[in-house]
């Protein structure tokens, strides 16, 4: 985190000190605080800033209060001479501030409660807003970003196409030549690649980009130069640009690497430059960018995404229309078929980048706003109690000539002061929360590297803080001012009816609060159920502790099936020789890491007209079933000697042999030709957790001729202890084999559910906060109510009311508010359910159980909150209560 938010907060807090010290010593204080911060971060790392603030913030507040009190007199309650007649607004405010700070200091419990409640809510709102701001609101970090478009191809004959769908090189090339509203139309792709560093292979995330990409984005390298169009010529010279981070980590930030050769996927690239640290395209994962010289031109590989910059003098909308009107013929590789016609679809780049997270972020923003609202209601309630107990003070002031406007102004200033204190603590909190959010957020959230509490966010928070202060202050202020100012003096505030309207207002606020909290808890419940459901789903195999890894073999050294088989045999033999290893196997696919599909033809099965006969397939060694724990249901599993056989899953058996026995049937399975079904196994959720089972086939490794295999290792002990020996085995066998993605299946599961976890954790946190705040709210109102009715309760007791009855009535009153709030909340839940539907799995959007759980949680919390004042009410001693008059 940069120093700026710290400095701003420090400056804000310094305003607690008298102006003279600020003027004379302010700069020095700032310098010293920075050194304190540095020292604390050296000692405690990330937590250092918090440690420094824990020392600094209370010190500034305490010193400020002490000095300001001393200046007028010894006591915080000393009288401050009010400004003279004809005093300006500023004088009034200054005078008010002095009075307010003293009166707040005199009531530390109240002040702390109000400040902390607001700090929590403002901090959370600021943190979420910093994400929304960076991802959705800030323009993309390129020159004239509004002129950048994301483009896709539109297949004119078939009326198909989408900006998110990749195109083949010939389609890109044809569109690039034909379009004219764009200055540049660039193409790019991103993926895992094998790189050689000091002779050892490893996997890295690389991008492929035409030279025009950098011109379109108008970015310049930090060191060296960009590559030109000549590096995009097929089989011409090839170039690579390194990302700043990759250059620092892998090349020790050595500027002399420019001009050297870098090997990616067995091709040599000349390093032409290093990009600046803030360049992250398509996202922050990209370690380097390759020119197009070695990329395939095949019309059958759809791997490029397109980006363009609109020409000067052309409107963006106009450019999009003209791209849509194109008709470009692209030859395919079937000489007999007519060329296919394409036009280009385009949307502003920013829209394409945020498309899949926009709604989710807005939901988070709405949720955190609800938390903020709940917190505000609590503080309003706190302020109302305070205003009531100070009714006499206002009456005296009014009697001494204070106008109604002055009273309102004073009360509003007070709540703004409280809110600013809350905002200041909130900003510090937001710094921590934002760091936490970035660490927690899944890769799918774009532009994470841009998330920070910057000037824009701080302005938002300041505005938010002041508006919160005004809103919170106005309600009690108007009430206090509108109460007949004389009455307070006469009889104290025991008038039974005077409190009625007041009580209604507060009860209304609690109902609103409960309604909001129910909606939040309901949403959190749905998302938590989704997350838990995904983790708990029956995956059809038992392999949480199986270690998995991917390998990438260099084709030069392993050109054919026999050399690859020999290598894998050698490696597996040594892996099986490790003491803890129970079994090991190969497969073409890692769990939750994509899938392969092939067309299926089955003798005796006639597909319906629109039915596409497809099956997912995995090429596996015989040990795979045992290692991953997939038991056979019928028939048998294959052995080392089997060829031209296949094991299918239950869904495939049910789909294609609805009333027959698949065993022994002959099937044509895509690239594997004719094979015989020899066994049926359980359905597994192996490729995707959240999709329904689809037909799946397991093909023996012998007939597979697969290139790079994945290893599965079942260990008798802790699988993580195998990581080092397995890496050593590979290193000793061939350093040019890249080994990556080493983790257990449980860890894979954890990664694959990152989105759901993010949503569940975030809304769960909001829900829990809402519950806590609502609990405090209910407690506050009931406790206040009991306090006000001490006399009435005393009379009731004196007249023979039973303690149990009083307890039941007080607690019952609290539960009544919760019931009403829940009822209103139910309507909110109905609406929210439609918003959340897209993010749910395994749970109905209008799940009555989630609603019941939310309501029950609130009712239980309210019961607990009402119980304490209820006990107090029941214990009222009639004598004491009556004598209190």
């Amino acid at each position, binding site marked *: 985190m940069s120093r700026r938010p710290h400095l701003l907060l*420090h400056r804000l*807090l*310094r305003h*607690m*000190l008298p102006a*003279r*010290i600020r003027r*004379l*010593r302010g*700069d*020095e*204080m700032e*310098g*010293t*605080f*920075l*050194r*304190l911060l540095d020292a604390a971060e050296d000692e405690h790392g990330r937590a250092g800033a918090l440690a420094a603030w824990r*020392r*600094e*913030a*209370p*010190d*500034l*507040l*305490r*010193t*400020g209060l002490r*000095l300001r009190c001393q200046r007028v007199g010894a006591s915080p309650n000393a009288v401050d001479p009010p400004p003279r007649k004809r005093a300006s607004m500023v004088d009034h405010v200054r005078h008010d501030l002095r009075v307010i700070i003293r009166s707040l200091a005199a009531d530390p419990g109240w002040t702390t409660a109000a400040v902390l409640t607001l700090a929590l809510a403002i901090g959370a709102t600021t943190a979420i807003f910093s994400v929304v701001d960076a991802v959705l609101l800030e323009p993309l970090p390129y020159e004239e970003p509004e002129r950048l478009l994301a483009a896709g191809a539109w297949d004119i004959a078939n009326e198909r196409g989408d900006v998110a769908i990749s195109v083949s090189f010939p389609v890109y090339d044809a569109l690039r030549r034909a379009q004219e509203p764009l200055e540049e139309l660039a193409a790019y792709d991103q993926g895992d690649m094998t790189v050689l560093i000091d002779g050892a292979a490893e996997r890295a995330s690389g991008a492929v980009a035409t030279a025009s990409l950098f011109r379109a984005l108008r970015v310049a390298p930090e060191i060296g130069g960009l590559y030109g169009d000549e590096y995009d010529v097929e089989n011409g010279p090839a170039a690579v640009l390194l990302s700043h981070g990759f250059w620092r980590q892998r090349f020790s930030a050595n500027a002399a690497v420019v001009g050297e050769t870098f090997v990616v996927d067995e091709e040599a690239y000349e390093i032409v430059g290093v990009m600046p640290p803030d360049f992250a395209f398509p996202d922050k994962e990209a370690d380097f960018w390759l020119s197009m010289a070695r990329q395939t031109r095949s019309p059958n590989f759809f791997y490029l995404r397109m980006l363009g910059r609109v020409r000067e003098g052309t409107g963006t909308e106009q450019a999009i229309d003209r791209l849509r009107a194109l008709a470009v013929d692209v030859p395919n590789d079937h000489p007999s078929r007519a060329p296919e016609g394409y036009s280009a679809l385009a949307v502003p780049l920013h829209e394409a980048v945020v498309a899949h997270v926009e709604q989710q972020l807005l939901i988070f923003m709405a949720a955190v706003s609800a938390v903020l609202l709940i917190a505000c209601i609590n503080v309003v309630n706190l302020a109302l109690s305070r205003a009531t107990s100070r009714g006499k003070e206002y009456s005296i002031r009014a009697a001494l000539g204070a106008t109604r406007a002055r009273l309102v102004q004073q009360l509003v200033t007070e709540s703004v002061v409280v809110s600013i204190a809350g905002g200041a603590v909130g900003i510090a909190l937001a710094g921590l929360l934002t760091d936490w959010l970035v660490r927690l957020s899944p890769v799918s959230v774009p532009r994470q590297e841009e998330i920070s509490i910057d000037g824009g966010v701080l302005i938002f928070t300041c505005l938010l803080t002041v508006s919160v202060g005004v809103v919170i202050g106005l309600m009690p202020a108007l009430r206090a001012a509108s109460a007949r100012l004389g009455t307070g003096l006469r009889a104290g505030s025991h008038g039974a009816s005077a409190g009625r309207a007041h009580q209604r207002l507060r009860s209304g606020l609690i109902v609103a609060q409960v309604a909001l909290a129910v909606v939040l808890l309901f949403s959190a419940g749905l998302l938590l159920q989704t997350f838990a459901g995904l983790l708990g789903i029956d995956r059809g195999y038992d392999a949480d502790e199986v270690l998995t890894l991917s390998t990438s073999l260099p084709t030069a050294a392993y050109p054919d099936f026999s050399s690859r088989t020999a290598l894998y045999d050698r490696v597996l033999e040594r892996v099986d020789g490790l003491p803890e290893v129970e079994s090991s196997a190969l497969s073409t696919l890692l769990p939750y890491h994509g899938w392969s599909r092939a067309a299926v033809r089955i003798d005796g099965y006639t597909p319906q007209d629109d039915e596409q006969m497809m099956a997912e397939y995995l090429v596996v060694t015989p040990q795979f079933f045992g290692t991953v724990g997939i038991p056979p249901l019928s028939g048998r599993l294959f052995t080392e000697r089997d060829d031209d056989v296949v094991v299918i899953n239950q869904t495939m058996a049910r789909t294609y042999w609805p009333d027959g026995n698949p065993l022994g049937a002959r099937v044509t399975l895509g690239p594997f030709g004719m094979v015989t079904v020899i066994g049926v196994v359980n359905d597994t959720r192996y490729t995707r957790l959240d999709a329904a089972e689809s037909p799946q086939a397991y093909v023996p490794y012998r007939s597979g001729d697969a290139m790079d295999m994945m290893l599965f290792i079942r260990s008798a002990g802790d699988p993580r202890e195998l990581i080092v020996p397995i890496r050593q085995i590979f290193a000793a066998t061939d350093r040019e084999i890249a080994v990556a993605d080493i983790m257990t299946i449980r860890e894979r599961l954890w990664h694959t559910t990152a989105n759901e976890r993010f949503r569940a954790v975030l809304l769960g946190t909001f829900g829990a906060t809402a519950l806590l705040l609502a609990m405090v709210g209910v407690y506050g109102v009931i406790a206040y109510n009991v306090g006000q009715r001490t006399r009435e309760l005393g009379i009731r007791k004196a007249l023979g009311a039973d303690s149990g009855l009083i307890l039941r009535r007080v607690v019952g009153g609290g539960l009544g508010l919760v019931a009403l709030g829940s009822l209103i909340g139910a309507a909110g839940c109905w609406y929210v359910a439609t918003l959340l539907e897209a993010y749910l799995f395994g749970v109905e959007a209008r799940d009555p159980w989630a609603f019941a759980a939310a309501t029950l949680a609130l009712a239980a919390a309210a019961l607990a909150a009402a119980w304490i004042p209820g006990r107090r009410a029941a214990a009222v001693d009639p004598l004491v209560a009556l004598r209190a008059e």
Partner: protein
Amino acid sequence: MGNEPLTPLSMHILLALADRRMHGYALMQAVEAQSGGTVRPGTGSLYAALQRLLDDGLIAIAEEGASSSRRGKSYAITELGSRAVLEEAARMRQVLTLVTERDLVPDTGGRGAR
């Protein structure tokens, strides 16, 4: 000035400056170290105390941060300041004598300064 007792923080500042001149951050470290961690000022209390001591003439600004503005100014104890430390120490000794005479302190180590 003169009769009013020094606050613990001011006393610690003067004691620290008796050795050598220091700037704010070093002073903060010194005070924390010599008080055994019982006095841990933040910048607010530290500079409020420094300003008060400056106003009372017990310390003075030694050099106007010519080297670098970020390091801040160095503070040095004045003649008056040294005298105030001695007076304060005398007062403390008197208090300590009274306490010891009445046998209120089991061991005289304790946190005499507080």
